[in-house]
């Protein structure tokens, strides 16, 4: 696997892959958004139920991004793989963005449904912490000048922060406060009608594809930037 993952090989493989990934993202969003709007209004929530289609996938991808970041950090730390460092570094701002998106859409959904923009509930609080974890990770990367050293330090921080993921996942079971419990990946099947489940899954696919498309663009940019810097310094690997 690692033989195919050196930066040069990555640039070669990702270049033709990128348009397909971007195209798939566009298709998934087109289908997902159409189904989201076409779904009937909920008998209790009315049209606000549609917020679910942009809120829930954002939250899923925000958590997946942290899992990805932690995995890339682990590989970077153990195998000293530069591409893994690049992947982790570039996943962080995206993860922070999706976390912010989940928090904002959640709060806009909470206002009509719960009557409040914010509640210090287990899941909301742990998600806010996820946002701060991302910010701390990004800040640490930017604070250390030496790139390899920054990558290692940030990787250690990312792995320490992994403890927050299960807390987010199980917070709705541990503290039964305002945020509803697990209603999709539960024993006994989902609690959501199929007309809502399909758009949700397609939107989730769209968000995931969007994450990886943007990640690929960011990683390519980072590698090109590093090459440009090496060229400018006239380094041994120039060209």
């Amino acid at each position, binding site marked *: 696997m690692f033989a195919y993952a050196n930066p040069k090989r990555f640039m070669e493989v990702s270049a033709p892959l990128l348009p397909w990934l971007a195209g798939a993202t566009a298709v998934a969003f087109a289908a997902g958004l159409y189904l989201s709007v076409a779904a009937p209004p909920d008998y209790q929530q009315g049209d606000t139920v549609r917020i679910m289609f942009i809120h829930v996938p954002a939250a899923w991808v925000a958590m997946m991004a942290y899992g990805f970041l932690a995995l890339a950090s682990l590989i970077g730390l153990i195998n000293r793989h530069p591409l893994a460092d690049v992947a982790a570094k570039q996943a962080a701002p995206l993860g922070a963005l999706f976390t912010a998106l989940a928090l904002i859409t959640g709060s806009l959904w909470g206002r009509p449904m719960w009557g409040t923009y914010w509640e210090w509930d287990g899941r909301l609080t742990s998600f806010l912490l996820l946002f701060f974890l991302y*910010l701390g990770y990004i800040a*640490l990367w930017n*604070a250390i000048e030496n790139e390899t*050293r920054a990558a290692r330090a940030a990787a250690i921080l990312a792995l*320490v*922060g992994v403890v927050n993921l299960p807390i987010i996942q199980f917070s709705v079971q541990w503290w039964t406060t305002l945020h509803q419990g697990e209603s999709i990946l539960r024993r006994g099947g989902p609690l959501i009608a199929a007309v809502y489940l399909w758009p949700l899954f397609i939107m989730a696919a769209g968000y995931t594809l969007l994450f990886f498309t943007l990640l690929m663009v960011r990683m390519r940019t980072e590698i090109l930037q590093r090459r440009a810097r090496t060229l400018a310094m006239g380094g041994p690997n120039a060209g």
Partner: protein
Amino acid sequence: MSAFAALLARDIRLAARAGGSAMLALGFFAAVVTLLPLGIGSEARLLASIAAGVLWIAAVLANLLTLDRLFQADYEDGSLDLFALSPLSLEGIAGAKIMAHWLTTGLPLTILSPLLAVLLHLPAAAYPALLVSLLTGTPAISAIGAVATALTVTVRRGGLLLPLIVLPLLTPVVIFGAGTVLASIDGLQNGGIWFLAAFAGVTLPLSPFVAAAALRLNLSE
């Protein structure tokens, strides 16, 4: 005297003497707790209900203030490099420093806290919980703080970066620490103290290794 004990004694002496951080942290702790009623209002019932949270947050902040001295000063004057060359492993060094930090910050804060709790009208029933929770939780603060400072030791003005890294990791300590004290006001036990003990029980043995890994990468060059 073993290298571990020597390092421990040295750090405690440094913290206790002039310019050390032990008294500063206590002063800061007392100042925050004193300032709060002046800002929020000194009504006894209001203060009693927020006393637990105030004491816990002030304790965390006072710890934060002293964290950058854990490795930073030794890194800057080069003594950390000398320690790394000593027979004591980096894990041992981190362990000794965590212990010294707790003995000079967490422990004095815990001892001072009942006095400040009187100023905040904390109900008498909550004092044992306050002491036990601080005694259990503050070692975990030192342990997690050591990891974060080891990560940022080469960063100039790392003091500004530190809170952003440490505070998200410390929230369980604050939640369960203050939660235990709050519950004990009503004579309840909410199990928070066990979460706190478990948290400390996991972070204390692991943190010297993580901190040593962070130091190793920062010292390698």
